[in-house]
């Protein structure tokens, strides 16, 4: 299982445009994508905009994105870049 720890830099947190961009990329991946807050809490489906909005990640909070399977490292790199983008 691959993982990336990312601190969300966008002012709006992982909402609105960052959330939509993240989910759009995650949906293209063949494997499951899980997103959780680094300081506890259950992981949610990274392909669901509703789940990501419900996770309510604010600016400065750290999330753990995880995926496994062929190509997952590349997907995780891209998702980490989106989530960490100011």
């Amino acid at each position: 299982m691959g993982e990336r720890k990312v601190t969300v830099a966008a002012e709006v947190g992982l909402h609105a445009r960052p959330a939509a961009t993240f989910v759009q990329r995650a949906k293209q991946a063949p494997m499951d994508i899980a997103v959780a807050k680094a300081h506890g809490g259950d992981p949610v489906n990274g392909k669901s905009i509703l789940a990501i909005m419900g996770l309510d990640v604010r600016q400065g909070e750290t999330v753990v994105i995880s995926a496994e399977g062929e190509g997952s490292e590349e997907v995780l790199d891209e998702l980490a870049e989106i989530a960490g983008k100011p």
Partner: protein
Amino acid sequence: MTTVLAPVEGAAVGLAAVPDPVFSAGMVGPGTAIDPLRGPGKAVAPIAGKIMKLHPHAYVIVGDDGKGVLVHLGIDTVQLKGEGFRLLATEGDRVRAGQAVVAWDPSTVEAGGRSPVCPVVALDALSDAVTGVAQGRVHAGDELFRWE
């Protein structure tokens, strides 16, 4: 099937008319947008359910079947940091479809140089799951579209 109600009075113009590609390209999901009547008004819940997220400028209601509908009051209105919006409900509340959630004035948003247009989006829905989309004049609480 979920019937989604118009959260505000105005003209249903479609998501393509929203001046933000996140909405106009359907990145958040299918639905429509309302160009709201200018003047003080109350934005209502588009479906019955729980208020999962409540910001002054946007809210998400999730029905008992897990379907979530996003209402965004104007574009880039997060930048207003709540100014000009008054919450009439609390995050986590259960609301009836048509119950008032936020009081606001689209003309104030417009005077600040932002579009007051309100996207109403079926989150995570496939585009063909949204049917019967209203066009033109709608009152708050009118049927706006159906989510199969």
